[in-house]
């Protein structure tokens, strides 16, 4: 009688373990399929939602606007240098705020986190660390200067 009971207990243990293992494989497969299926669906959704056409903005400085020492237009600073004018992006290299030009100190200053840049665009102090982006400029036949900014 006692033996039979022991045997029964053992059999049920084995049975449960077997079920557990089978259950585990089943559950793992279900998880695998849902992760794979979810991924197959999520990837196109994510790609769709994060796609943007690359956009550019053209900034034209006409001859009147080229007269001042430092001129700001549509996110671009046109700075007069000894040889030729230079176009600098007015976007702070830290977190993208538009820089102000301080004519007394001859420096660019960020109103958000206080980074300071030289008039050449070189980083001087503050959290930005990187120099300002230089934008290539083209001179048209009528004297206009054109800078193309990537958005």
């Amino acid at each position, binding site marked *: 009688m006692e033996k039979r009971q022991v045997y029964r207990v053992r059999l049920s243990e084995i049975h449960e373990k077997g079920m557990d293992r089978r259950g585990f494989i089943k559950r793992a497969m279900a998880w695998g399929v849902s992760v794979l299926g979810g991924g197959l669906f999520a990837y196109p959704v994510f790609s769709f939602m994060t*796609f*943007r056409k690359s956009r550019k903005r053209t900034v034209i400085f006409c001859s009147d606007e080229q007269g001042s020492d430092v001129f700001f237009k549509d996110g671009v600073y046109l700075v007069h240098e000894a040889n030729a004018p230079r176009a600098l992006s007015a976007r702070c290299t*830290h977190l*993208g705020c538009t820089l102000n030009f301080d004519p007394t100190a001859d420096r660019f200053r960020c109103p958000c986190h206080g980074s300071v840049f030289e008039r050449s665009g070189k980083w001087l102090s*503050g959290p930005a660390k990187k120099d300002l982006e230089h934008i290539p400029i083209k001179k048209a036949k009528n004297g206009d200067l054109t800078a193309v900014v990537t958005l």
Partner: protein
Amino acid sequence: MSAGRIQTKISSALPRIGLSSLVLCLASGMVLIFYYRPAGEVFANVEEITTLVPYGWFFRQLHYGSGQAFVILMFLHTLDHFLKRRYVHYPMRVWVTLILALLLSFFTLFTGFILKADQEGVFAGRIFMNILQTIPIVGASISKLFIVSGNDFFFLPYIYHCFFLPILIVYLIRHHIRDWLPNRGFMMAGGACLFLYALLIKPGVVFPPDAVTPSVEGPWFFLGMQRLLKAAPPLWAGIVMPGVFMMCVFLLPLTRKRGEFSASAGWLLWGKVDWLRYAVIFMFFVYTGLTVKAMIWGP
């Protein structure tokens, strides 16, 4: 009345006045949506609402006041539960859902700050976009889910502010709210205060996005972060540190002692010291200190 009773009254009043603010905020938002356009000259559009459209100034201030009141009261409601260690009585899933709703409420406030389209709004949007872009590998893609540069700058914050977030917040708190139109007294008191606020307080001075101003401030709840961003790299100040804080808050129910809510102790109660609670209090005090400093001496 004993101090205990006053405390209980305050505890029950906070969420009820908060709910009446939410109702007013949603209602005034539904009025504003008829004139607000998230494309073109957005700053001019907002100025028109304030100065040209009949009663526009009133609805704008009512929306602003009720939105702020809702989020502040929800924050105080959470703080009240935190101080009383009520989080140990919540199942983990419920606590996480409610904290997430509070977090999304702050995000709704922030998207509203962007949608004002004045200088501080535009700069806040750009800073948010640039911080997201600093996340390694997926940063550039993730930022495009929330905000993009160019003509569509206000479009995604608008969609989040007017549709995704309000619907999601109401969905997340649906089981938590016992009665959507609470006690008439609270409705009347909250409503009267907010109506008076909208009638008497005029919108502050705003600068157009291309104005030259010596310093630009973020929304009050991000002043501490603005201060932090001056000292620490954007990824740390904007993502990692707030992420660690939020993770600690999410895990609070796991610090329950034996017999509190369940027979076994939470697995985050190491020894007898509730270290997670102290970590949350410490981080909160540091951030509050930074915010107060920025409020007094500028960010």
